[in-house]
């Protein structure tokens, strides 16, 4: 998946402006942010209680959960022993999302899979964020040789394509798929470099800000300056890069599971149920050709929906970091009643006369919408 890649690196000058006027991460209350938060909340709840409310075990197979279809040319009327192939059941009251061709309950699998997917996304993002803070902030604050070395390390990791490296890593650590921590760690190794570059740039600009200099002049120690003076100013950027990395980590986890590198729940030691694993099974069993949409569509849509939620929230943080992205000023309603666009044409300031006697609200010159 492609993640918006430029938002984070452009913010330095603009962020400086915002950060100096706002003290804490207060997200703009836009519909986008609210939608993002709602989506994330729903998935968070499912991740916690999913395994608990799932009607069946995801591994449970039941012969009666598939329709047995007689293979043509076998069974009664022929001299070949009756042979049947299974057909999964479409959604019904008993199986909300139908069943798989392996005679398992899709809804249960979906609920149970949420946990590992979300957990890996968050844990990998957390590890990667901590790594990127340590590397990026240290490099940015110390400067000089330490900066050169750490930046080089970051640039090297940034240049090596992530997924192939991930594939090689996961391939040689066969136990990876059995442990949320191991798989998160491996993903984090391929993910931290970008955030670290962004944080370094930001720290570099903060380091030369007068308030850091002032703290130094008043005799404040180096560690305290980083933790108390610099880090709080990085919170919006850290938050943005956390969301970005979560998005990336979920994509990466799903991808390696899809490639079968994270172990299947039936192998030993068993891998974890996750959306990528579900998709792998549908792909292996040709679910698309079979027309069994209830099996392959839900995990894919869940990934897309969760990703959209993260991206929407990221929008909010971007608009916080870079106020130029906000649609400023006119409320939707005001703009509509005035008959002008919310974001009027550049270099054509709208003229809205309120005190005119004629019924037309707008002047001829304001035909901008």
């Amino acid at each position: 998946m492609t993640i918006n890649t430029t938002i984070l690196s452009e913010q330095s000058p603009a962020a400086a402006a915002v950060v100096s006027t706002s003290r804490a991460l207060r997200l703009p209350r836009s519909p986008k942010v609210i939608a993002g938060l709602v989506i994330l909340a729903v998935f968070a709840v499912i991740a916690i209680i999913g395994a608990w409310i799932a009607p069946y075990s995801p591994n449970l197979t039941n012969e009666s959960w598939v329709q047995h279809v007689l293979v043509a040319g076998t069974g009664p009327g022929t001299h070949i022993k009756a042979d049947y192939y299974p057909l999964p059941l479409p959604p019904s009251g008993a199986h909300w999302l139908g069943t798989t061709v392996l005679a398992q309950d899709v809804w249960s699998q979906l609920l149970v899979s949420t946990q590992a997917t979300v957990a890996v996304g968050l844990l990998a993002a957390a590890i990667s964020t901590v790594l990127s803070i340590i590397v990026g902030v240290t490099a940015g604050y110390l400067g000089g040789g330490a900066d050169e070395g750490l930046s080089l390390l970051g640039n090297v990791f940034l240049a090596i394509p992530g997924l192939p490296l991930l594939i090689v890593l996961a391939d040689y650590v066969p136990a990876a798929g059995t442990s949320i921590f191991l798989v998160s760690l491996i993903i984090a190794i391929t993910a931290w470099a970008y955030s670290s570059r962004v944080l370094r740039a930001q720290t570099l600009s903060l380091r030369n800000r007068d308030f850091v200099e002032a703290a130094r002049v008043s005799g404040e120690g180096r560690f305290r300056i980083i933790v108390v003076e610099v880090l709080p100013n990085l919170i919006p950027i850290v938050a943005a890069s956390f969301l970005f990395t979560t998005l990336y980590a979920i994509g990466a986890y799903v991808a390696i599971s899809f490639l079968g590198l994270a172990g299947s729940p039936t192998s030993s030691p068993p891998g974890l149920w996750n959306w990528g694993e579900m998709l792998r099974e549908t792909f292996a069993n040709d679910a698309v050709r079979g027309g069994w949409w209830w099996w392959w569509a839900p995990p894919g849509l869940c990934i897309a929906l969760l990703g959209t939620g993260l991206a929407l929230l990221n929008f909010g943080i971007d608009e916080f970091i870079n106020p130029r992205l906000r649609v400023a000023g006119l409320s939707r309603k005001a703009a509509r009643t005035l008959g002008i666009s919310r974001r009027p044409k550049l270099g054509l300031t709208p003229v809205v006369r309120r005190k005119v006697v004629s019924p037309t609200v707008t002047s001829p010159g304001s035909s901008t919408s």
Partner: protein
Amino acid sequence: MSTPVVSDLSSPGPPVAPRDVAEGADPVLEIRGLCVEYGFGDDAVHAVSDCDLSLGRGRVLGLAGESGSGKSTLAMAAIRLLRSPGVITAGEVLFHSRSAADGEPAPTLDLLAAGEEELRAVRWSEIAIVLQSALNALNPVSTIGAQFDELLATHRPGLGRASRRDRAGDLLELVGMTADRLRSYPHEMSGGMRQRAMIAMALALDPQVMILDEPTTALDVVTQREILEELMGLRDRLGFAALFITHDLSLLVEFADDIAVMYAGRLMERAPAASLFRAPRLPYTYGLLHCFPPMHGERYRMEGIPGSPPDMRDLPPGCAFHPRCQWAMPRCRQDVPKLEPLAESRREVACWLHRDDATAPAELTLPDPAVAQPRTAPVIDASAGRAV
């Protein structure tokens, strides 16, 4: 759209209005009742309220005010370049084009009622702007020459490539640069050079009005004076009118013909430069003049203006200056004074001290040099404070 002829830079420009022509007699740009808000509705910020301003042909009108007083907003709104969420809510801005040679009346355009194409025809060819930082105003990815070229190609379609280049070179030489600078990118030049190039570009189409928005604030004093002197020399030669916006009142006293002072989105005083400096009528102007330490004479303690500039989102009622005014009266806390002419001369002030039966303090009734001759003693009173 007609194609105006390119003016010959070497020949003298159109006749320049004599300096002593009464201001407003032959206006080239008239702003009437302009109101600008940021946002719209109940929580809108009234950035500019009910401003009247008239720029005489060939004259320099200084617009002074502190940051946030609305001076730039006023100018940018007048030419419809104010960014969102700025909205113009009232007023008209009349541009009177140069009257034709045969004495026909000058065509007039209301910029606030003009459509996009009408505005485009007037922009730069009649009204050009110079902003504070030329580094930001010049396109960083094209050369100076390319930026001249596209400008001339757009507005002077009759001109060939070679003549466009020649003209651009002439313009650069006009502002004290060499034509080989056309090949330079903005980042390759110093701040003063960039600002010169920007001024040359502003002159390219021989405009009648120049809007100078803090054109020298980012520069050092020596460069500042060099550029301002050049600008004023060009004004005398080419005859454009200039609206010169700055927070530095002391600069305006030297370079502007007339000065208008803004405070909290309103025009508060307007007078010929010498009158304003020698005999201010507005307490705010009086205070502002006492914020510039003198370069000569005895040193003494000055107090500036107490308090801070107001928050535009939460203006005090009545006259916005009253919380900082040492002569505030009960009336100042309730009613907003309007900018009205004073009986004595062609100057205007928005202050209750000069209205009706109020008695203005002696500091604000010094003889006006435009009326009383010739140069009076400076208003700054050395006995006012202790020596530092």
